[in-house]
């Protein structure tokens, strides 16, 4: 009995010492030895990260993780997805359970500076909006004094909503649920008058309502919500890789390279194109990948514009057309601008 107890105690002690060894620093090395990237995504947001009935994930955020996989492994499918709620997402990233979080997460100072996380860019510029039933006869958010609003708990949405109503001296009732599905169900059942989240989320969740045509999105945008991927702060090389994956996709669209013509563009004489394709220069070494990293990204996943149009563009159920909005390329007057690949 005593021997059993002593041996259990020593095993526990050794386990504790092993834990005290500290988190492995080289995320890239760990990912390469694992053979896949663990990507944190949402629990089902059409257009951004949503599983189909076979369990295959697709969306704007999913394609970012696939782009990283193409950069690291040369194969876009070496990704495993972890669906995370808004509450659990940062802990999962900080604890090392996932390698990168691509979950339509808003870039804020608190999250960047106090949580030990690093935002590596913006893959969708969004803003918070409101959705109401058409038969309420409301045309503007300023008419919502005294309304009940349903939202997801633990998000910037709650804070922005409270700020908006306080700033305009209006009363409201906030009903905050844990999961997005519950919010939509409560809004559909009439528990609240207003559903509020990022406008892309409104477009996505409207497809899940029983009568999407009965609802409309109000014109007001009450906050800035730059959505982007997040990694841990302690690994600069992995953060650089994530950042430049996104930048490569944007630069490819700027140069007019897409998954269709990338093979023919490989032999292009333009030095900028050569640097992107990896035939000239050694940019890839600093981020620890092969020289065809950007070529693989564009070939297997596409450039930023292709990915956008495939998942959230004007021809998708979300119908978030790019033209004239902030999500257009900077050359067309939008905000999608990436530093040069050199």
């Amino acid at each position, binding site marked *: 009995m005593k021997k059993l107890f002593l041996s259990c*105690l020593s095993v*526990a*002690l050794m386990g*504790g*010492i092993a*834990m*005290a060894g*500290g*988190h492995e620093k080289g995320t890239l090395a760990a990912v390469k030895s694992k053979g896949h990237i663990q990507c944190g995504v949402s629990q089902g947001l059409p257009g951004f990260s949503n599983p189909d009935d076979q369990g295959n994930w697709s969306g704007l955020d999913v394609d970012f993780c696939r782009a990283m996989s193409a950069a690291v492994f040369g194969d876009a499918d070496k990704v495993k997805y972890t669906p995370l709620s*808004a*509450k659990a997402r*940062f*802990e999962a990233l*900080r604890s090392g359970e996932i390698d990168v979080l691509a979950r339509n997460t808003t870039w804020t100072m*608190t*999250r960047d*500076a*106090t*949580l*030990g996380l690093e935002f590596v860019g913006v893959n969708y510029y969004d803003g918070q909006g409101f959705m109401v039933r058409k038969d*309420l006869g409301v045309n503007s958010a300023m*008419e*919502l*004094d*005294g*309304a*009940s609003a*349903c939202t997801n*708990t*633990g*998000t910037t949405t*709650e*804070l922005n909503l*409270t*700020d908006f109503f*306080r700033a305009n001296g209006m*009363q*409201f*009732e*906030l*009903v*905050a*649920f*844990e*999961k997005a599905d*519950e919010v939509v169900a*409560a809004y559909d*059942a*009439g*528990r609240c*008058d207003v559903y509020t989240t990022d406008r892309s989320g409104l477009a996505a969740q409207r497809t899940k309502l029983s009568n999407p045509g009965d609802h409309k999105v109000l014109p007001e945008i009450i906050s800035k919500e730059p959505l982007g991927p997040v990694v*841990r*702060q*302690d690994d600069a090389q992995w953060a650089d890789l994530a950042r430049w994956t996104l930048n490569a996709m944007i630069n490819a669209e700027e140069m007019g390279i897409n998954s269709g013509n990338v093979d023919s563009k490989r032999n292009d004489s333009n030095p900028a194109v050569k640097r992107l394709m990896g035939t000239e220069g050694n940019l890839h070494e600093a981020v620890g990948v092969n020289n065809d990293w950007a070529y693989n990204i564009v070939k297997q996943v596409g450039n930023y514009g292709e990915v956008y149009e495939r998942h959230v563009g004007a021809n998708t159920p979300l119908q978030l057309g790019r033209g004239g909005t902030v999500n257009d390329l900077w050359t067309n007057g939008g905000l999608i601008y990436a530093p040069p690949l050199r």
Partner: protein
Amino acid sequence: MAERASATSVLNNPQFRAILYQLIMASLLIYLGWSIVENTIANMEERGIRAGFGFLQETAGFSITMSLVPYEPGDTYGRVFVVGLLNTLLVAGVGVVLATLVGFLVGVMRLSQNWVVSHLANIYVEIFRNIPLLLQILFWYTAVLKPLPGPRQVFERNTEIYFGISNRGITGPEFILLDAFSFTTWTALLGILFTIGIHRWAKRRQATTGEQFPVFFAGLGLIIGLPILVFLLSGAPVEFIPAKMGRFNLAGGITIIPEFLAILLSLVLYTASFIAEIVRAGIQAVNYGQTEASRALGLRHGITLRLVVIPQAMRIIIPPLTSQYLNLTKNSSLAAAIAYPDLISTFAGTALNQNGQALETLAITMTVYLSLSLLTSAFMNWFNSRVALVER
């Protein structure tokens, strides 16, 4: 002589060995604990994660549907903690009382001679014990919400509503107690004291003369009837402020949100099914000879149950009953699934996600639940020792 000296060397002394092993064990445990804490702090510093309890003074910035104390979005996280804690205590307190009542009732029904009654109770127990609680909570939330109409269908705009039911909740008027209400409160307090006194006097009288006194009804009159009389005589010193129907919702008044009703209903029905079985077990554990003897003395079935069987059954019922109370308190944390703002949902949910300090927040929350559980079980143990029968 030399062998005697070596045979009693220090290591062979059993007492010394015992102390030595305990010292080694204690220092190993302390080292383990210290290394875990140090490792956590080092890792948090390395990754730039804030530590400390200063976040409790920061502004929360979000609003909460239901709070028993005044709460504004500009209040601190510390205030959020208080609001969440009170909401949890409310659900736990009311839930425990109701679950005990329903549980005892169903448990006694289960033992009834009436075939229909006992089988109904059996069906109830089997259904509610075996379905996971989260499913029950979601079911009752939908069951509470679906049949209720929206406020705009029930109330006319710009009318004053004194009492109304909609899918936003049960709304009653806000009431302000005027000064004259103190007469009523004093009467009620005196009524309680008098009832306790009468109870003691009646017991002594019954012990000596054998005559019974209707303490229950006297108490009812003193605690409820008399204060109501005083209330009416002092001119009904309560001011009612009705709610007013705005464009979307009722403004003002006091509203009980449907989330509270749903979580209360599901917790009570779920826990009561377990309590019913505990009560049945306790009653059946009492020797049937007790029932036979009491019937032989001419006592009716109800009196037998109340005065002979249940007091003996309480010894067996109370310890598992304590576990069920603790379960109910902890299960109330599932309220996050239906947006009831309890401690987990507000403090360890929204507030945690805003300020990111998981360790401190969860440590506080765990301490709270631990303290609640310890307090409940301490009280129940004291109660148990008081009602414990001393057998011959």
